[in-house]
């Protein structure tokens, strides 16, 4: 409608044309101005602006920060991230600064936040050189890739995937995380301060790990280089050794 006046200038002549187009131009400029003023007075209508409360700790694209206990979020399965946000909101998973931020946010919004970070793909960080001995790393690799049947420990890869990139919708990859964070999470499961939807398979796994196992597997995982394709594999790509409440089948 607005543009039709410009498309048909030949219908108008001389001064009249000039007056009409000028008036139109002014009207358009005013409209653009008003729109610009309006957006200038409002924060951008984007998820990026809405999660600015998260980025000092998790990085602008969820890539993580220099703090080794602040996890990367980018590229993890949306279902997994959403489950974590629900658990933080209800206080089932504890980290008071986040419990506080999320307390009064509705489900669909938490879902949108999860989708947002799941769809970001900043590169995985360079693995940090490890401080533990070769033997310990070897023990970690053994647990992660083969488990320890004698002690009822399944291989981590049997759930987290052969490439450790996780599986949609509920199983996270274990790459791009640093050893202290991984140890802290396994410890939290062992002591019951982190729980997942029942049956909580990670609790079963962590319950069988010793302190030494935790140190070893965390150290080895943190040395893994980024794979060519870090994306979580589609749902149902492989069968889990036993059921997990976070991964509906």
């Amino acid at each position, binding site marked *: 409608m607005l543009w039709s006046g410009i498309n048909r200038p030949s219908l108008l002549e001389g001064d009249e044309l000039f007056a009409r187009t000028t008036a139109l131009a002014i009207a358009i400029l005013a409209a653009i101005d008003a729109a610009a003023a309006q957006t200038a007075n409002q924060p951008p209508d984007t998820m990026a602006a809405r999660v600015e409360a998260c980025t000092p700790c998790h990085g602008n694209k969820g890539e993580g920060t220099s703090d080794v206990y602040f996890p990367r979020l980018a590229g993890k399965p949306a279902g997994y991230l959403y489950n974590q946000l629900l658990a933080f909101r209800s206080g089932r998973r504890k980290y008071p*600064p986040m419990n506080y931020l999320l307390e*009064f946010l509705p489900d669909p919004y938490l879902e949108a936040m999860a989708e947002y970070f799941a769809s970001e793909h900043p590169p995985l960080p360079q693995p940090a050189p490890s401080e533990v001995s070769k033997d310990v790393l070897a023990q970690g690799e053994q647990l992660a890739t083969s488990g320890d049947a004698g002690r009822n420990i399944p291989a981590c890869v049997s759930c987290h995937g052969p490439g450790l990139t996780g599986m949609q919708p509920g199983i996270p990859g274990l790459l791009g995380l640093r050893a202290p964070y991984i140890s802290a999470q396994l410890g939290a499961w062992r002591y019951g301060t982190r729980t997942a939807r029942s049956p909580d398979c990670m609790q079963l796994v962590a319950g069988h790990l010793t302190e030494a196992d935790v140190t070893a597997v965390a150290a080895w995982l943190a040395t893994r280089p980024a794979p060519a394709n870090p994306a979580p594999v589609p749902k149902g790509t492989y069968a889990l050794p036993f059921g997990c409440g976070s991964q509906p089948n």
Partner: protein
Amino acid sequence: MGSRLSITLLALAAFTTAAQAQDKDKTGDIVARGEYLARAGDCTACHTAPEGRLFAGGRAMPTPFGTLYTSNITPDPETGIGKWSADDFYKTMHNGRFPDGGLIYPAMPFASYTKVTRADSDAIFAYLRSIPPVSQKNRPHELRFPYDNRQLILGWRTLFFSEGEFKPDPKKSAEWNRGAYLVEGLGHCGMCHSPINALGGTSQSDAFKGGLIPMQNWYAPSLTSNREAGLGDWSIKDITDLLQTGVSARGVVYGPMAEVVHNSLQYLDDADTKAMAVYLKGISEPSPPPPASSALPTTESSLLISLGKTVYDKNCASCHGTQGEGKPPHWPPLANNQSIEMQSAVNPIRMVLNGGYPPGTKGNPMPYGMPPFAGLLSDNEVAAVVSYIRTAWGNRGTPVSAREANELRSAPLN
């Protein structure tokens, strides 16, 4: 007394919220009305545990005297209130007593609910009878001696409890009276917004004068002083926006007030929200002049404030604007924002330390957030930036010290 209220209210103009409420009562579904009123009373804030079943209780309420656990108010006959009559229920709401006459702790806000009409109490009861029963035993309270003795409640009641349904003020409009009924009664706003004395009571004469909430370390501002949250110079639209959506052109809600908007106020209809706004605007009174000077020596405070400007420009201006103008309602203005200038600096210090999101509401389902700065700024920088926002752009607050900032680092977050 209930019928007297109805008659008085019905006698008033035809197009009032009160009359509308009465209509709903006559024609409408009493259960739906009860649900609405239970929202207005925010029963769920206390009687539903996180991830727990609706109204099955068991939520811990820390108090200076120990921890209380809320009751199961589902219609389960053994563990809930399934065997109660409407009379029993009214006795609890109106008089703070169990069916057997036993005394109820005032953490259950019966001192406000006593103003609720019998008809409204019956509607809430009808609604509670309609929800799924949950078999879950009440967890015994963990109160320290001597507070575990319920007889002590008698003393509290003598000092702080006056039983009685709401009496409308015939000199005021029906709308004002409806607002007063909701704010003073079901809304139990005075439970937080009045100073709490050592006995855990709020007195009638200090109603809505503001106070620090024990255990939580949030300051609930005065609703009567325009130097705090008195809404005398707010427009009705800004007040209703704040109550219904959690954000407004003048400021936002956070902390315990975010809970109130999230669980309760966002569900009130436009007419009731407006009635509350009219009442709240009406009770604001002329305030005493601001305190002349700050407790800090002037050289110290001027240094603080110049450091504060540096911190502000680097960390805050991107959202709140270089002149504190914000981008309202989502990024609230800090210039001319009462909740920053108040005598108590607890809230702005905690905002800077903890950040926050306003509640997600129907009117604002995807709120914008503020990052916590506890890990990014030192005590000195927190004090500096808070001093700056309290005094810049014509704001009339006073500077704060690094010690105050430090003390609030350990304030509980939930």
